């Protein structure tokens, strides 16, 4: 038995850990140690990856590539491969993952099980839109090959299925062509949500990546930084010889030891004293960067990946992340109401992330992304006060007919989950009876 925490560090319960290393032997391990749950690289925040006092099947040892077709960009690999390993291998060869979240330190299996999204959702959808097939080990000992034509229902349940339909052992992914590792970026400060939505709408057509940081403590005068970016083609990048030196410096930096949060401070470093000045300083610093620039995809897309264990800065009690999506109709009012509630509570978040999703439904039965606007916030765990604030945010999300992101949730009530995910009963039929998580017991009863 070994203590295991999720990324939010809200709990540290003992788990009976089994390390999966050989894809040929996954099914027997599951059959011998059930009920259990797959655990990837532990980057989901709440209890979706935990099974306290039960079995946990570690998948990061399943990290082999299996086949790649350089003509079509189809990659077959084991599910424990990290997105970073795919990117670092294939970007120099002119291929990239079409969708990644704000960290590349997650496994392929985790990306599928949570149907993760990125800053380019409006352009290319979520991770699952680029998954061609998976092999799924069930705790009965069988291994199933899934794809969208032969087994559409189980495929749709497994994509975004929180690991509850079986253990994803291998996956076939469609990579996309990319001309260079460079992005042409533009940074635009904005004042208020109306301006944010104007920028988001105006950018949707011509910009592949869009995201914004918002100062959630500023209330009615919410101000933020809107960032948009497009990949640069090889000729564009070649026309800027100075980029080579930047790339060399970047590579040297990534090959040296990354910075690490060396210990858990006794108190959260994110607190009433630090938040306001931080948000203000961040806003002013980013404002200085207004205008066009060129960025390497790694620091632009994964700003925190080079600070290992950054989750420790929230102190020994950990933190919650709260990410919601609400439909565009009424979305601005709902987001404003959430920002007001946060400002009034005095429970701050580091600069929150605000982004619009494109007008497309995800393929997974329990996938999070849907047309609308999504707001993501971090809250240091201060017990009852923090939970009460999130209850108020729940009410706003419920009223706006939105939903919360399970990859980040640790506490949403069951009725909000059921209202937000209408395909739940359809999903239930595809579950593997030998799999259970803290979250599935909390939200689905088993």
């Amino acid at each position, binding site marked *: 038995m070994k203590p295991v925490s999720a990324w939010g560090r809200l709990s540290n319960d003992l788990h009976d850990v*089994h*390390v999966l*290393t050989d*894809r040929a032997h996954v099914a027997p391990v599951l059959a011998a140690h059930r009920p259990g749950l797959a655990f990837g690289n532990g980057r989901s925040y709440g209890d979706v990856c935990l099974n306290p006092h039960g079995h946990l099947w570690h998948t990061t040892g399943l990290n082999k590539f*299996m086949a790649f077709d350089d003509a079509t960009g189809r990659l077959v690999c084991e599910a424990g491969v990290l997105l970073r390993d795919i990117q670092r291998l294939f970007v120099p060869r002119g291929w990239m993952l079409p969708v990644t979240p704000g960290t590349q330190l997650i496994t392929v299996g985790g990306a599928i099980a949570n149907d993760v999204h990125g800053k380019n959702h409006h352009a290319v959808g979520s991770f699952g839109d680029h998954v061609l097939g998976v092999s799924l080990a069930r705790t009965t000992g069988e291994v199933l090959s899934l794809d969208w034509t032969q087994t559409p229902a189980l495929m749709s349940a497994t994509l975004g299925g929180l690991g509850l339909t079986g253990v994803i052992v291998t996956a076939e992914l469609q990579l996309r062509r990319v001309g260079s590792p460079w992005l042409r970026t533009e940074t635009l400060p904005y004042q208020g949500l109306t301006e944010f939505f104007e920028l988001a709408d105006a950018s949707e057509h011509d910009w592949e990546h869009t995201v914004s940081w918002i100062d959630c403590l500023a209330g009615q005068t919410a101000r933020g930084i809107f960032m948009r970016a497009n990949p640069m083609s090889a000729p564009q990048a070649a026309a800027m010889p100075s980029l080579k030196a930047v790339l060399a410096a970047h590579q040297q930096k990534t090959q040296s030891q990354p910075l690490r949060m060396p210990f858990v401070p006794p108190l959260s470093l994110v607190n009433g004293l630090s938040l306001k000045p931080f948000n203000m300083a961040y806003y002013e610093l980013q404002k200085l960067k207004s205008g066009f620039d060129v960025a390497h995809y790694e620091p632009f897309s994964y700003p925190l990946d080079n600070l290992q264990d950054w989750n420790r800065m929230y102190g020994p009690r950990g933190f919650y992340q709260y990410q919601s999506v609400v439909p565009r109709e009424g979305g601005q009012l709902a987001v404003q109401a959430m920002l007001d509630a946060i400002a009034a509570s005095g429970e701050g978040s580091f600069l929150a992330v605000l982004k619009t999703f494109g007008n497309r439904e995800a393929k997974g039965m329990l996938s999070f992304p849907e047309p609308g606007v999504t707001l993501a916030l971090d809250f240091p765990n201060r017990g009852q006060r923090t939970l009460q604030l999130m209850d108020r945010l729940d009410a706003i999300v419920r009223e706006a007919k939105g939903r919360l992101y399970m990859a980040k949730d640790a506490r949403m009530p069951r009725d909000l989950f059921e209202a937000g995910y209408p395909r739940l009963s359809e999903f239930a039929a595809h579950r593997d009876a030998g799999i259970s998580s803290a979250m599935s017991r909390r939200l689905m009863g088993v």
Partner: protein
Amino acid sequence: MQHIVIIGATSAMAEHCARLWVQAAPVRLTLVGRDEARTRRVADDLRVRSPQSDVHVMTSDFVDAAAIQRTVSHIVNQAAVDVVLIAHGVLSGQGTCQDDLLACDAALQVNGVSPVLFAEAFAKPMVATNHGTIAIIGSVAGDRGRKTNYVYGAAKGLVSRYAQGMQHRLAQTNVKVVLIKPGPTDTPMTSDLKAKGQKMASVEVVAQDIVKGIASGKPVVYTPGIWQVIMLVVMHLPRFVFNKLNI
């Protein structure tokens, strides 16, 4: 292209070394394992990582001297060898070895005798060409016998002493012998220890040290480096102190 041979290619340390090698430049790789399907899975991974590399797979018995001789002769007849990494091993529980003489015998064979036989078989042709590096993975456990793993430690101690002698023998040639002594490393071999919560070095870091050590031809490589200091202390503890320790 450099020709690198890996004995025990499915070992996690060896696999990560191979990943670093193919990432640096295309190489000819000969992967030798006991289980053909598993060795092929490693080869497929390396081929995706480096389509320009030339990856070969072989299987062999690892404890039969005649089989080892045949395997090595076959390899050296195919192409001259630049680097051999002998990486296989099994972490047999000390308790099992004490209870079961057959398990004890198997542990000594596969962790001690087998690597020595492979190294000896490669030495002859490499001395003949006066070129190449023989790297053997030993262990910090071979530095001083401890009650919690002395059967494994004794086998690794055999490897240490053997490598030392071979370094002496080949000192006047261009063939280098590198002995690698990893501390506890996060690999499938140690997954039980990991499940119990023991802290371990990442296999990526250890593989980097091994590849660097082989490139420089260093006679002894402790990895992570801190183990050189730790073992210096452990080896010099007076027995009356050492015997009181529960390690």
